[in-house]
């Protein structure tokens, strides 16, 4: 990059917040995927004004800017694929306000999601979005990817809790969107455009989130289904009975076996599907509902149902799900996790197609996910050292996305498009809609400096 631009950046935000050291460029070259590309410079802004200055200079000089939270993203969204500036927002990590009368919190984008949850819990409140990366990901990243998690079925995704945003757009203008109220129809819902935009429209510099009261209790049941289709149907039956479960987590046979090999918890490994159902609410309701759930699970074809009768037993049933991540890490050297979502009724067919794809490409694929919202995580096991395997992985990934779209689903439920799924957007999204999306991008970012090469399939 032109040294004059670096100097301009240094003058604008302070030399100590701008780095071109070789080591720093290496450390900011990746995210939670396996891909790598070094930026030309890393900037560590502390204030909205810093961010605005960077976007003003970058826009004028046509330099790419890639916003970065904790770099846990699984779609390559924070990779500086075109070089340029890596904008590290992790240092803007203050909780600015927890307002009890209005039950909301105002935070900077670099706040770690769990830190927000813990801070509001002290006041008896609850911030429900719970991506499995909650320990390490940032609120800014969550907003930019509209992150979800197991609790989405009942509580919704990140975007359902965002009341207001401050964003900086290319050119350096600061927009304040939404506000501190649940209802807000003054003007267009521009805020919605930024939620899930993967850092391609603006940089989120402040987030106002809605809080809800913390449910008092939680209870869990675990069911073993010989047939996966029955597990899916069971979730429908539970909803029909008027119970909205907190989570409905599915593990297929291979996943269960991996967990069992890792932790020896006594999980049944001879069934097609293990389904973990949890309910939350006040203590009485929870006890009543979990009993109801257990009956429905049995009637829907479960061979065995374990129902927790205490918080402690509940915890024990969670043990398997909690160890899923380390367990599957040990299955293979490398993994590619997909994130498709299909209508719930189509899950059995999707799982069958995954088995076909696995066979056709000669690659093991394990499946787990959240039945309730149709979000599946087929995970391809592979070895990146082997070029032949990697070619098959690319094919299998394409096959999976295609199958999901064919079944009326989407390319990604929560991880985002980033670079990994970008080329599939043409098939996955309605053509007219895509054209308007391109228009939105051009409106906010006419010179294509903000996270270029991501999300939309145009250069």
């Amino acid at each position, binding site marked *: 990059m032109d040294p004059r631009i670096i100097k301009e950046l240094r003058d604008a935000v302070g030399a100590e917040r701008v780095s071109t*050291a*070789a*080591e*720093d460029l*290496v*450390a*900011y*070259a*990746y*995210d*939670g*995927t*396996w*891909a790598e*590309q070094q930026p030309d410079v890393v900037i*560590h802004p502390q204030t909205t004004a810093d961010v605005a200055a960077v976007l003003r200079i970058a826009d004028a000089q046509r330099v790419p800017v890639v916003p970065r939270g*904790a*770099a*846990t993203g699984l779609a*390559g969204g924070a990779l500086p*694929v075109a070089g340029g500036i890596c904008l*590290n927002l*992790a*240092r803007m*990590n203050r909780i600015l306000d927890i307002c009890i009368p209005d039950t909301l919190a105002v935070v900077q984008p*670099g706040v*770690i999601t*769990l830190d927000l949850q813990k801070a509001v819990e002290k006041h008896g409140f609850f911030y429900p979005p719970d991506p499995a*990366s909650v*320990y*390490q*990901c940032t609120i800014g990243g969550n907003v930019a990817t509209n992150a979800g998690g197991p609790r989405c079925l009942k509580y919704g995704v990140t975007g359902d809790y965002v009341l207001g945003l401050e964003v900086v757009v290319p050119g350096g203008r600061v927009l304040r969107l939404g506000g501190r109220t649940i209802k807000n129809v003054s003007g267009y819902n521009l805020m919605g455009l930024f939620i899930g935009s993967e850092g391609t429209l603006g940089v989120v510099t402040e987030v106002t989130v809605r809080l809800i009261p913390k449910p008092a209790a939680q209870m869990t049941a675990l069911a073993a289904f010989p047939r996966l289709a029955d597990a899916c149907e069971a979730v429908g039956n539970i909803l029909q009975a008027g119970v909205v479960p907190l989570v409905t987590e599915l593990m297929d046979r291979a996943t269960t076996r991996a967990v069992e090999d890792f932790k020896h918890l006594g999980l049944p490994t001879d069934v097609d599907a293990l389904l973990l159902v949890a309910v939350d609410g006040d203590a009485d309701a929870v006890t009543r509902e979990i009993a109801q759930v257990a009956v429905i699970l049995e009637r829907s074809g479960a061979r065995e149902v374990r129902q927790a009768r205490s918080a402690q037993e509940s915890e024990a049933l969670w043990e398997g799900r909690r160890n899923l*991540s*380390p367990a599957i*890490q*040990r299955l293979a*050297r*490398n*993994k590619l996790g997909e994130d498709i979502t299909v209508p719930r009724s189509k899950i059995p067919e999707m799982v069958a197609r995954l088995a076909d794809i696995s066979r056709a490409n000669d690659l093991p694929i394990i499946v787990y996910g959240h039945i309730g919202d149709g979000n599946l995580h087929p995970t391809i096991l592979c070895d*990146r*050292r*082997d*070029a032949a395997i*990697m*070619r098959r*992985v*690319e094919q299998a990934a394409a096959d999976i996305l295609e199958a999901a779209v064919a079944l009326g689903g989407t390319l990604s439920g929560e991880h985002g498009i980033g*670079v*990994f799924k970008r080329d599939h957007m043409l098939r996955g999204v309605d053509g007219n809609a895509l054209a308007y999306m391109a228009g939105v991008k051009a409106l906010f970012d006419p010179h294509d400096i903000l996270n270029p090469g991501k999300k939309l399939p145009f250069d």
Partner: protein
Amino acid sequence: MNLYEPTPGQQVFGLHLPDYDELQGCIRCGRCLPVCPTYQQTQLEMFSPRGRLSLLRAVEDGKLALTDGVEDHLYHCLDCRACNTVCPPGVRIGELIVRGRVAIEDKHPRPFLIKFMLRHVLTGAERAALLSGPLRLVQALRLDRLAAAVLRHVPGPVGRRLGELIELAPHPGRPLARELAEVEPATGPQRHRVAFFLGCMMNVAMPDVSRATVRVLRRAGCDVLTPRGQACCGAPHDDQAMLDFSRDLARKNIALFEPLLDEVEAVVTDCAGCSGALKEYAEWLHDDPEWRERARRFSAKVRDVTEWLDAIWPEELTPVHRPATATYHDPCHLANLQNVRSQPRRLLGRVTGLEMHPLPDSHPVRCCGSAGIYNLTHTDMSRELLDRKMADVAATGAEVVVSANPGCLLQLEWGRRLTGQPIVVKHVVEVLDEGLNGQAQGDPRPRG
């Protein structure tokens, strides 16, 4: 950019780390970032476990030259192993960073003074004890205070740091190494026989604590066997990339304790750094066919004193403390490395009169900044971590701060002096010892 491009299957460039495979095992999930103390302080990726591994990997893959910056980042790691405890694929991050230090040692050797001290002074409790004579003389004549006072008035950071270092120096009592009989018999009903490993730091800086350890062990029914000529455990050398040296020390200790192993139930030490290292001998010498089995047998018997006492504590013994609030600070090398967390807490729970208030960030534990010689080599980072720890301590309202490692105790004691907080800092065994002897008044007094 081809997203499905294969990675190199073997090392072509770089350091040829033996653990290249494991290095590639990091999936960059970022789970280790929020628990890493140096990342917490800086929010900079280069100061995180994931960042450090990535630097090593880039050097290995020929994408990054072996710069001074790489060295600096590798040595900014506290070796506290908080990261290891949370890593989903189970990458042994702390170990890989230490391996990285070894691999760059050719081109980036450690400072002469550090190596000299480690090679010639910190080689065993008895040798190290030679240090304490002159130190005690200087302190008796109050020359240290004088020097510190003078240095404090020298302008610039160097004078201030030196002054602080002198103040940090412990005021040790008589060393213990040559005082212990080879067998100190149980004073309570005899039930066990244990070998005692006397750490260098304990012996030089806080021999009175180790005296308490031996008293408590005997009271709890243990014959305590202390073989003469013990070598340093090797942890400081391992930490500073002197692997050959630390392996030699390990062999010495194994050979020395071997004849006792049939006779004793455990090899006990009251230094968490030592117990961690002694337990790792099996791994250190795994590739040495002559020593592998001997090391495994030795390591299998090693117990931290808190672990051992918790396992054998006789129900009839009830230590008593005057009513006081207390808190327990986990030493990294006890909690993160050895997963010994509940044992010291259970022991303290047996002390009548102590009301325990927990410290935050204890699982994995956040380092107090002591970290071997880190508080001498990286004073600024160490000081920031100490300040945070002291603020945590103050928030618990504890009057007694208990830990189980000499480095932590010295660091916390220094924190006490810096902040003037009305606390006493004690080893778990001191609390037990005083509690059994009815002398736990807990008056603030300087350590040593």
